């Protein structure tokens, strides 16, 4: 199946003899040592909706950034109407008729809706912006986006997320693009706006626009798409007309990563009868977390799965007390606690530590020494009457450096002089200094080398065996499979599925991350059991 899918890429849509409106041929992009996109192929036709699918890190975001002129490819060609094109900036891509609706909104909060819609090319009279023409342009674009109930003079910062997304779509349409790229454009929309957008997109297709639609919602793709291209490991692995593959076959195409890490053995645990170390009941926060409940026992590693941005980060931040206005209850050792901030969460009786996702900004003070970085979180236990006990600090720091095998020429060196992997060990070490009882990890192995990754997996296992309770979010499904006793798969801010023991495999993770219906997951699970 994969073989003939590859052939499909070479000669896209054989029924259409005319050349595609836009094509990518052998496009590659590298970030440092990581290949984000290799040899990507894509052909887009006018008057069609082309869905792009793939799991986390499959290369979808890089693909559209290249199409939109945000990043330049290292290799390969792009053809518009058969002519080679290159974009140096987003404005180049816009001038070529490519408009992109990004996941991170590109609206300017302090400007009005009309100002935003007209931002890249406002109508002018005598060299100055013609506000009346701009107003007409905005009203027309809003109507075309099915959002004529948004006032053009409203400030963007006063609008809800869903409304802003509608403005974003109107803004893209105001540029009269030939190709419109939608990156998870519906993820922030309310149900009412989603139905409107479906109609709008179908109308645009009839108008002859080419639409590139990136979504992880399989039902949306089934409803809208004419063509599909699946990405995996930065490669375009298959292109096919929509409806010719089952959901299950698409999942098969999306997985298939090379297994490149060895995971420590897990000793099977008997379910514990004790009160869970951490219990979460009906946790909610704005529209990003909906009714999340979970129980985490001492000695257990629970993974958080799902596609990126489904509320996993918010869940960890909420537990660490960073979010305001959360609803629901958090219990530690069966006792309700009010987590009002990291200073409370790290208190001895709670003993929580969060390893943040961005070690450079949230984890470390790069110009400060290794020792200072390691002792920050534990300073209160290492000091008497507000004065740091230098000897105790040195002993504790040396112990952690040995335990984690942090490679540095001295603890006086700045943290920034260490390699990425060792920096990540520093962040972990900082929190191990307080001997955490509950360890929250936010994608801790992103961008670090395989060797350090394995050391971290080993460490997590050892910590769990020593009695720590670990909640582990990872965008890498292999890690979840290899490290976790249970995995909670999140979708739209809620836990949609819990996978236990042998159920934890990549197929099950992908299909539940995509929220594919129960019978499919059952089928997938059955498949997995056979292999």
């Amino acid at each position, binding site marked *: 199946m994969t073989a003939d899918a590859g052939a499909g890429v070479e000669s896209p849509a054989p029924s259409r003899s005319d050349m595609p409106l836009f094509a990518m041929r052998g496009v590659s992009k590298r970030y440092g040592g990581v290949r984000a996109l290799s040899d990507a192929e894509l052909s887009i036709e006018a008057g069609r909706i082309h869905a792009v699918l793939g799991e986390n890190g499959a290369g979808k975001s890089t693909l559209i950034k290249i199409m939109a002129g945000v990043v330049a490819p290292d290799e390969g060609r792009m053809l518009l109407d058969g002519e080679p094109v290159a974009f140096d900036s987003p*404005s180049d891509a816009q001038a070529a008729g490519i408009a992109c609706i990004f996941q991170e909104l590109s609206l*300017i909060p302090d400007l*009005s809706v009309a100002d935003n819609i007209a931002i890249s090319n*406002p109508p002018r009279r005598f060299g100055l*912006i013609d506000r009346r023409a701009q107003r007409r342009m905005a009203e027309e674009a809003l109507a075309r986006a099915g959002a004529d109930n948004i006032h053009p003079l409203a400030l963007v910062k006063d609008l809800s997320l869903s409304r802003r997304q509608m403005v974003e779509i109107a803004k893209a349409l105001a540029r009269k693009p030939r190709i419109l790229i939608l990156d998870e454009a519906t993820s922030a929309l309310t149900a009412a706006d989603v139905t409107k957008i479906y109609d709008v997109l179908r109308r645009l297709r009839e108008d002859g626009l080419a639409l590139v639609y990136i979504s992880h919602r399989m039902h949306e793709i089934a409803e809208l798409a004419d063509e599909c291209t699946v990405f995996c490991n930065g490669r375009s692995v298959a292109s096919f007309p929509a409806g010719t593959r089952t959901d299950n076959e698409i999942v098969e195409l999306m997985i298939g990563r090379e297994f490149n890490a060895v995971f420590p053995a897990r000793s099977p645990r008997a379910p514990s009868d004790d009160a869970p170390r951490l219990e979460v009941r009906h946790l909610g926060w*704005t529209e990003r977390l909906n009714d999340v409940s979970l129980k985490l026992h001492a000695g257990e590693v629970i993974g958080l799965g799902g596609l990126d941005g489904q509320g996993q980060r918010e869940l960890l931040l909420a537990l660490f007390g960073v*979010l305001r206005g959360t609803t629901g209850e958090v219990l530690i050792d069966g006792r309700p606690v009010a987590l009002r901030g990291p200073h409370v969460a790290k208190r001895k009786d709670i003993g929580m530590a969060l390893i943040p996702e961005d070690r450079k900004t949230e984890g470390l003070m790069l110009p400060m020494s290794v020792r200072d970085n390691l002792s920050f979180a534990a300073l209160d236990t290492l000091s008497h009457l507000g004065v740091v006990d230098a000897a105790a600090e040195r002993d504790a720091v040396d112990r952690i450096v040995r335990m984690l095998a942090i490679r540095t020429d001295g603890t006086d060196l700045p943290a920034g002089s260490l390699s990425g992997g060792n920096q990540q060990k520093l962040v972990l070490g900082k929190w191990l200094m307080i001997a955490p009882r509950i360890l929250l990890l936010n994608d801790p192995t992103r961008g670090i080398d395989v060797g350090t990754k394995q050391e971290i997996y080993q460490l997590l296992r050892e910590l769990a065996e020593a009695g720590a309770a670990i909640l582990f979010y990872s965008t890498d499904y292999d890690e979840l499979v290899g490290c976790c006793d249970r995995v909670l798969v999140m979708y739209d801010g809620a836990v949609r599925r819990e996978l236990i023991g042998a159920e934890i495999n990549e197929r099950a993770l992908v299909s539940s991350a995509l929220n594919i219906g129960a019978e499919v997951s059952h089928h997938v699970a059955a498949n997995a059991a056979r292999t």
Partner: protein
Amino acid sequence: MTGDGSYWLREHKGTLLAFGAFVAMFTIYAANHPAGLNANVATTAANKGVLLAIVAIAQTLVVVTSGIDLSVGMVMVLANCLASTIVVGTPAMTALGVVGVLLVGALCGAINGIIVIFGRLQPIVTTIATGAVYYGAALALRRVPGGDVNATLADALTGQLPGGVPASLVLLLALVLVVWLPFRRSVIGRAAYALGSSEVAAYMSGVPIRRAKFVAYTLSGLLASVAGLFLTCITYSGEASAANGSTYTLYSIAAVVLGGVSLFGGSGSAIGAIFGALMFRTIGDLLFVFNVEPLWQPLFQGMVLLAAICLGSLRLLRIRNRLDLYG
């Protein structure tokens, strides 16, 4: 469409509040002035107010880009020293001198802009450093206070028009019409606001970020030099006064804040800053009218400014993710 008015109010809230506060204060001032509001009182008040208002417009241009220009006062002082040397003589020489002063001001602003844009340095450190350089140049130009200025020009700018209208107000109006409004309504001005509000979003929207920053800083320098020229017309001399430079820089920031311009960038208007400047001046005059000892004046002005700044922290009530407090 209904509701246009309410959106208009929302957008111009800061400017309207500054306008209202100024009118209220000025009414109290005029009603309590021992000599009543005659043309001479109005002209003196206007000249002082307009001088600060021009510097405040200069500051606004940079602040909307979420920058800050700590060299405005020094550019003004440099222009003052230069004007007291070259804006003299025949009408033709005077005109040439004015052009020279304005060019030097624009050049100072352009240097700030270029360093901020291409060095990617924080505007605050950049303009402290360039401000010191501009002051040094002013001192080199005029070691001791003195010099002269074309009296016809000075009297025309600082005097009264027929009917008793202060000429300085006409100058201010002209600057608004010729510099501010075209900027506000141009694509470059829109870009300046956009990048002040969210530089990433502006970049992603294909907005000309660099050009907008350059124009904002250059116009800021130009306006600061207009203020320097006007100062020369008021004092008939030039003085390389560091105290004057620093005071006007700080007062311009005060005027911008009182005028409802956000120091975070992206919102507010020079019209608001003008009323902020006039208001700030009127506070001093009010204290004078009510016989408060002049030494108390900085304390009162400071308190008014502090109160105005505190209004800005109301937005904290809406933050739901504590990380946004530290971002």
